[in-house]
């Protein structure tokens, strides 16, 4: 451990933009996103995959970025919370629904909920109450008691239908991508 660590180049598409990072093999994807790519919207709550705060979309599917090594996802397409708003800066249906339903308090767990629900609504665009609860059933929140988060899932589904045709996971660069 006295020698400098060997670093590896990782190429990623993050929120629609090509990014590269030079990281040691042991760098967690969550740390890579936060500290190498400087996208600090993804939060780390437990670093053992239980709380879900660090959830990002990996090729469209929600994953816990604290359980992945950055080098293991070389070439992947990643969406973080910074990439959820539309190219015009408008909040996505899920983000908008959280604001309307008071679905967040301290906001620390929120990015993980937003990414998880964004993917969840693509799979179940008109969720039943059971599906809505199941969708957020693996994410911890200590502030809200979850009632307003479940309400936000339903409201987001409504908003998506209203914005019909809008892609739930934008592939074009958003304002949060630049750095």
């Amino acid at each position, binding site marked *: 451990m006295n020698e400098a660590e060997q670093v590896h180049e990782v190429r990623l598409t993050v929120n629609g933009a090509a990014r590269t990072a030079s990281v040691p093999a042991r760098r967690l994807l969550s740390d890579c996103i936060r500290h190498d790519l400087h996208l600090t919207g993804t939060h780390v*709550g437990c670093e053992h995959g239980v709380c879900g705060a660090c959830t990002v979309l990996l090729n469209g599917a929600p994953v816990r970025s604290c359980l992945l090594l950055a080098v293991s996802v070389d070439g992947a397409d990643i969406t973080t919370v910074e990439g959820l708003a539309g190219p015009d800066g408008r909040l996505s249906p899920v983000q908008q629904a959280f604001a309307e339903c008071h679905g967040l308090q301290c906001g620390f767990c929120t990015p993980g909920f937003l990414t998880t629900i964004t993917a969840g609504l693509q799979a179940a665009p008109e969720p039943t109450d059971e599906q809505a609860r199941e969708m957020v059933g693996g994410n911890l929140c200590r502030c809200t008691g979850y009632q307003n988060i479940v309400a936000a899932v339903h409201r987001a589904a409504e908003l998506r239908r209203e914005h019909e045709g809008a892609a739930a996971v934008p592939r074009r660069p958003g304002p949060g991508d630049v750095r």
Partner: protein
Amino acid sequence: MSSLFGARVQRVEDDRLLRGSGAYLDDLGEDALAAAFVRSPHAHARITGIDISAALAVDGVVAIYTYRDLPQRLAEPLPLLIPHPALSHGRTPYPLANGEVNHVGEAVAMIVARDRYVAEDAEELIDVSYEPLPAVVGIDSARRAEHLVHADVPGNLAARAAQEHGDTTAAIAAAPHVLELDLHIERSASTPLEGRGVLARWDPQARRLQLWTSTQTSTGVRAAVAAKLGIDLANVDVITPDVGGGFGVKIVHPWPEEVLVPWAARRLLRPVKFTEDRREHFIASAHERAQEHHVTVGYDDDGRILGLDVRFWHDNGAYVPYGLIVPIVTSTQLLGPYKPGAYKVEFDSLYTNTVLVTPYRGAGRPHGCFVMERTIDAIAAERGLDRTLVRERNFIQPEEMPYDQGLIFQDGRPLIYDSGDYPALLAKLKDLIGWDQFPAVRQAAAREGRRLGIGLACYVEGTGVGPYEGGHVIVETSGKVKVATGLTSQGQGHQTVLAQLVADELGVPITDVEVVTGDTRRFGYAVGTFASRTAVMSGSAVTLAARKAREKALRVAAGALEVSADDLVITDGLVHVKGDPDSGIGIGTVAVLSNPLRYAFDEAAKAATQFAGGGDMNRPPVAEGDEPGIEGRAFFSPVRSTFAAGMHAAIVETDPDTAEVTILRYCVVHDCGRLINPQIVEGQIHGGVAQGVGGALYERMAYDETGQLLNASFMDFLMPYVSEVPRRIEIDHLETPSPLNPLGIKGAGEAGVIPGAAVLAAAIEDAEDIPVRSMPLSPSDLFELRRVSHEETA
């Protein structure tokens, strides 16, 4: 009053947080070195040696510190924040262990390195030799005192304190009926999703320290760090970034890391950051709740309490930096909405070799509520009376307000309830849950082989605790209004409710109001965020500050418009004559005119320059006693706390086979005085109820007899997910305004959690017909209760 007070205004905080643009502690300090800590693996041990040589050789390690490196003031124990005459043996930790460790997780050495990965590599190579000592774990072991946590604290007794109102022994002796109960609550913890964290930057040219910390009190940290590091207060800025939840644990200060990180940053002339990881949060921050209580109660045939004697034992962990606040709150708030004929309470605060105990949301009230409500239910059961009837008979009546309980509260002031209407709350709760209809519901379920129970619990919560908070409001020449208050936010929506109050008071759009909390550069006098006090304290302070700014704006505008200030109003940022909204001037222009200028910085500012004309040439441009600007600064310091109240009721179903408990309905009636923003109050209730459910059914700190915390992870410490909380929380409000502040409000932050254990214990007891005396109650606990009860019956 006006348009925004009482409105469900959407939060102004949210847009930023939803875009991932929040700035929490670990999001800051990109260029900072990382700190990590060697923490004790033993609950109790002497340190016989520390070898850092191998760790120092790790590439990227910048410094390693142990106790021997600490300069004089840092080498002293951390402050005892709230001294009390009964706290005869107060002990606090050293920033780094001084030859002895007293709980698993206590910091022994600090590593500063290029990043956290490297710091943890070095941590593994630091060789600490320990000579283990017997560990004291749990209240029984502390009370037996076969071993001592601190060799110089006999009996492990930090404090013994007592209060009495009336002659309790005589009242109980004379009572027709007497019951005794033993009641127990286990440990849980605040457990915010973001742990603790601190970033420090020392500017050697300016000789100035900037400190960002995830805290509930920036001014508290500032004073403590300035004192410990010997820096003038004026040269220390403490800035609270976005905080990912607090719930009490972040009111404790200074944490060892909060003094060590800035000390290292100054020594190394490099910014240094510490970000706590999850395991560290479990073993190196603070817990709460563990108490054992013995109740003796005397009452009459109708269930009226004639005398109540409560003896309890509080596990304060290894140290008591926060003094006796939790047991004092239990001993006073236990009384809830009731007026026993006489009341005596005595507690022991005991050291154990476990993580220290400081307030967690509710701060002693959930245990007090559990004790009182279980006692009332036991009286009702013994007398064969309806549980709501026994409560009604013991309530303080609205016409008895203000009501003096004859005790001293946690703020050192008399426990006098300011206002409240407990019979009205109970009536609302009975309606909401359908108390009187429940027997039919139970029978219908029983016919399907289902086991249902109902319970209720009542509490009174002293909120808006002093000593004071302040606020500052300034109108900029753009018309934007900047507001600052010194206490901090952890997600409650303070910026929103304070902006509502200021927008109303000033008559400006809320979108023009920006509120900053917890930044000592903006407001240096403050206490902190705890005890459901922000709306009452800072809400009142910013309202008074905005009122001053408004008076000034009207006065300046009156001069410019040549009308009387009494005829002017401000609507939508325009100062105008009442009834004539077209003839006014913008509040930003008024701000320009209020500040006589030599130099024009923009077009609008020209109006205030020296050759612009206007003004009486025989008077100074700024009148004697006046100041430039449209500004207001005010403080609010109430004579004592205001007392919010509430009552919860739940219907549960218990599984006859698996002993699982399902909450079918959860109803809340709540009185926090006038509501500024019902959506935010409801959000606070939702979150509190979830923590109450967690504490009642799932969460416990599982220590083994050697003092190892066996469940120090989110895998094993069962914080509720969505699947564990009630689907819906039915809420009704009552508003009895407080006479103690200009807004008539009371606090709401902690309320939701207080009756959780009490109400669920009551409902489970009702379903099972087995006395519940200890919480939390897991399915295996309930299974065991059934087994024991079955054996006793047989």
